[in-house]
């Protein structure tokens, strides 16, 4: 029934478009209209469709909420919220014909009858009201075709409204992130103390799933996880920093245009490879490499999931970030400075070290911060190459775990959504989000400051 209604509405809209447009076109023969004919058509179409659809959606939503609430009354003796939800969904599914299953509860049959009657009256009422609204607005819109009617202004204002909404949407996304993380984090801190989380040094989130199950209590001291993240990211920066910087220096100061035009895109390719591929590469090539090196140099206590493997591969992934951002910073330095230094008899290396790098220092620092921020937020490489046990160590040959690995581990698989175990993942994510945000803001501020020097 509803689909019939929707088709009807769209049909009327098209009809209204055609009617109004042709009326407008007729008028245009003898007058100069404010708005072109198709705008008049659009006006009619808009007035026919939009209010009706909005009402339809709104109506369905409200009715859905109401029926859920009233249905729950039939199962008022059930204490488990999840079970109540299951029952009400069962009633709805039964009435809609998706399933034949009858739930063994005394309230089921009355609930089904109640829902059925609710649905039938609802459908008819909804159909009638929406149809009436549509027809009224349709007829109404036909009256508006006049020379001076500012159809185009109306349509354009709607368009601008849509654009403004789109732009504001971005804010809603951020708010959504902050709220959803914050909400669950706060719930987490109802069970676990904030200071224990931030400063505790023992992380093993085993917790009883059901209250009556005997299980070891969880420890949620996140410091080992933070340390693991830091260790791997620092190793990554140790790899990417020198390679990225020297690459950028060579390509911007020494290389011929031809070499630069080939080498730069090739290095950029490293940035385009999905991180899951890097993770796989870490497992099949890099880990065995380090293991073999370890036995060759007789390191017997090297873990197969050592931090150095994950850190090295992450470093490879980050090279293009460092290289590209540093290159931008170096080439932003005016050529005249380089010429001035060279004219005084400095070599290119002296010029680079004593003039160009100091001149672009802010930009380089900013790029390193951004690369570092990328490293700590990285997930797949560490999930596949680093361990799950949160070891507290700075030894790169040990296995450590990172914030992102813990989040993945805690939230994949079957767990209850509300247990402190899964909530701890949100707390970790909140910390991660917060830190990367701050790093990003600082780095942009630093880069902005250096850019001002040249403008």
């Amino acid at each position, binding site marked *: 029934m509803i689909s019939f209604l929707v088709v009807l509405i769209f049909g009327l809209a098209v009809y209204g478009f055609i009617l109004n447009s042709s009326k407008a076109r007729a008028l245009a023969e003898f007058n100069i209209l404010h708005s072109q004919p198709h705008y008049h058509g659009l006006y009619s179409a808009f007035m026919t469709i939009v209010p009706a659809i909005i009402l339809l959606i709104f109506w369905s939503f409200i009715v859905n909420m109401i029926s859920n609430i009233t249905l729950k009354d039939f199962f008022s003796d059930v204490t488990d919220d999840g079970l109540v939800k299951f029952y009400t969904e069962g009633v709805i599914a039964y009435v809609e014909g998706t399933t034949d299953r009858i739930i063994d509860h005394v309230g089921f049959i009355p609930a089904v009858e109640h829902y059925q009657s609710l649905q039938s009256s609802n459908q008819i009422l909804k159909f009638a009201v929406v149809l009436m609204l549509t027809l009224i607005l349709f007829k109404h819109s036909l009256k508006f075709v006049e020379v001076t009617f500012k159809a185009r202004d109306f349509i354009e204002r709607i368009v601008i409204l849509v654009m403004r909404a789109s732009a504001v949407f971005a804010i809603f996304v951020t708010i959504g992130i902050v709220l959803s993380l914050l909400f669950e984090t706060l719930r987490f801190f109802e069970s676990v103390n904030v200071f224990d989380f931030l400063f505790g040094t023992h992380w093993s989130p085993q917790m009883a799933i059901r209250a009556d199950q005997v299980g070891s209590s969880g420890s949620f001291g996140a410091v080992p996880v933070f340390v693991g993240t830091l260790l791997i990211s620092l190793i990554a920066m140790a790899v990417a920093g020198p390679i990225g910087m020297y690459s950028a220096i060579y390509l911007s100061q020494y290389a011929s245009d031809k070499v630069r035009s080939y080498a730069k895109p090739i290095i950029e390719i490293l940035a385009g490879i999905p991180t899951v591929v890097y993770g796989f590469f870490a497992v099949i090539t890099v880990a065995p490499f380090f293991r073999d090196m370890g036995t060759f140099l007789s390191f017997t206590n090297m873990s197969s999931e050592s931090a150095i493997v994950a850190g090295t591969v992450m470093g490879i992934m980050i090279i293009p970030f460092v290289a590209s951002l540093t290159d931008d910073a170096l080439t932003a330095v005016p050529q*005249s*400075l380089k010429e*001035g230094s060279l004219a*005084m*008899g*400095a070599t290119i290396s002296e010029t680079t070290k004593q003039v160009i790098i100091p001149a672009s220092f802010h930009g380089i620092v900013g790029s390193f911060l951004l690369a570092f921020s990328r490293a700590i937020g990285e997930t797949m490489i560490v999930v596949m190459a680093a361990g799950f046990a949160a070891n507290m160590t700075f030894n790169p040959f040990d296995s450590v775990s990172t914030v992102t690995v813990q989040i993945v581990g805690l939230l994949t698989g079957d767990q209850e959504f509300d247990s402190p175990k899964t909530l701890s993942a949100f707390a970790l994510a909140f910390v991660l989000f917060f830190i990367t945000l701050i790093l990003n803001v600082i780095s942009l501020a630093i880069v902005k400051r250096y850019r001002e020097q040249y403008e």
Partner: protein
Amino acid sequence: MSEKLKVAIRNLNVHYGNKQALFDVNLNIMEKEVTSLIGPSGCGKSTLLKCINRMNDLVEICNIKGQILLDSEDINDENQDPVLLRMKIGMVFQKPNPFPKSIYDNVAFGPKLHGMVKSKGELDNIVVQSLSKSGLYDEVKDRLFEPGTSLSGGQQQRLCIARALAVNPEILLMDEPCSALDPIATAKIEDLIAELKQQYTIVIVTHSMQQAARVSDRTAYMHMGELIETGMTKSIFSNPQHEKTQDYITGRIG
């Protein structure tokens, strides 16, 4: 004014890729004189200037054929190090380009780089001397550690001159040094040139004939990559031999 030959340019041909910029240029630069290179835009005067301190080496597609002799030694010879060459030749550019360092550090850059001083005291001396020679010292002596970029245009250019002088060069190359400056700053620099030529050989590229007439001893007129005429400034301007020179000077071309 001496009659000693400082720089001899012989049969110089310069190509940028397929385009030829200088055609068979022959020029003598005499010691402790001011030689000016004049001519309409694109005639190759800057290119010629940059050949003298091998700044054209930086341009990949630049191809140099011919001889440039500094004190009878070919500067383009394989055994010659451009770094050493540029210690003997200082350059001042069209737009002042002080480093984003302090005034002191700008001037101290060269001496420190080449290891010319052994103590801080010596370095201080050189900085003060160079700034004095370029007539800037009195204006900045109280703020030597402020950034070089905080000076006015004219001051920045004099800072660049001081910076170039600090390494004790023999030759000073100036590529339209006043084109970005106002008349008062220009006048100051022209006065400076008159003083400096007592110690240094100066080659100046200028698009202003009047400036050439004011500051230089010898003038060379260039046109579309060719050196048309060269001679004592006074005679070039009062009695040019070549028709093209005459056209330029009288304003028929330019």
